[in-house]
């Protein structure tokens, strides 16, 4: 390197040493707490009277036989990978499964089902396929 190049290096580095830390510090100071948005898992509140019919990463399904207003609770903890999931009550007495509701976003879903229901089925209306069958025990 000759003197001229050495000088050019000095100038560039002086600029970098001043400008870069200032800008970096500025951006760091400017970092704000991000707006709370979608976070994967949903918190589940379980009552004592309820029994767990299913518990996995996506679902917590609770049954409370004594509750006459709404005895089935489905917590959808993660988005379900299904375009149109519907919930049906399956029972030996009924020839056809009885539609009880639609699952959409993450959240809590309350249903009232007959004590003759043996299982709860989740079925996709667009893909026309069964996603899940949850057996219920009423005792």
């Amino acid at each position, binding site marked *: 390197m000759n003197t001229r190049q050495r000088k050019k290096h000095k100038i560039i580095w002086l600029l970098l040493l001043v400008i870069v830390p200032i800008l970096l510090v500025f951006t760091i100071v400017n*970092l*704000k*707490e*991000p*707006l*709370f*948005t*979608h*976070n*994967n*898992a*949903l*918190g589940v509140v379980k009552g004592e009277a309820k029994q767990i019919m299913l518990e996995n990463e996506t679902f917590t399904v609770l049954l409370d036989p004594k509750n006459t207003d709404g005895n089935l609770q489905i917590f959808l903890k*993660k*988005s379900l*990978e*299904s*375009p*149109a999931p*519907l919930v049906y009550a399956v029972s030996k007495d009924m020839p056809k499964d009885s*539609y009880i509701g*639609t*699952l*959409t*976003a*993450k*959240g809590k879903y309350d249903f009232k089902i007959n004590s003759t229901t043996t299982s709860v089925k989740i079925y996709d*209306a*667009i*893909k026309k396929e069964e996603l899940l069958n949850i057996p219920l025990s009423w005792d």
Partner: protein
Amino acid sequence: MKENKDFYVGYIDSVAPKTKKTIKGFVLAAFAILLAIAAIFAFTQNTAKNSYFEFGVDTKITGIYHELPYPMLQVKTEENEYRNIVLLGFGKFSANPYLKKIRNTTKPLSGSTLSIEGNLIYYNGKTLIQITDEEKVVLVTPSDAAKIPQPIAMVQDMELQGEIIDPKCYFGVMKPGKGKIHRSCAVLCISGGIPPVLATTDENNISKYYLITDTNGAPIHQDILPFVGKPSVIQGDVYQLQDWYQLRIDVSDIQDLNQPSTIY
């Protein structure tokens, strides 16, 4: 500079032992740091969400077409139960270029029963479909205006906090599908006709989505571009269209929160 007796010449094969040692040390250190950096950057990524895009897979859906104001297909899933599926086109475009043909042959299009074959996009209770072939939009039954759903007024002057996103990317095609890095893409999508949606999450982690329109319920695209991809506070009138909310706003009622959004 350290006076070293060894001298390295690139085109001569032999290398002095001390020089070799220094180079070996450097390469080892460089590799260790390189892999540590790879691991750190990999581990500190946010977790991608399980939104879904059925790329390359065709599904046929049948329902009532309506534009209130964005093209959608009302698919009946059960008695009195409907899923309103947002129609989209290929790339960063709305469904309109793919509906041109059927619009010419079927007048009016709203209220007609159509069968559409396309690629489904879904996440968290919302479903959309990408149409890539206008031939796959077929008339089943001509228009019956009585079948067109009506938006129902819910709340006036509701204040909501969230981010304006483009639903195609957000609900499945891109991850992350919102935030600053994705902003350019969202702007292009909405500019191309894809409906803007406000995505909100409350403190219980429950998300709600609102299709954004102007105060008359007409589409907004160009005017909303400066606000896309940035957390904002918006005031507007909420309407419900079966399983979708609609937010009617005036763009001057959007306040920038000046906050970044987490990717997930």
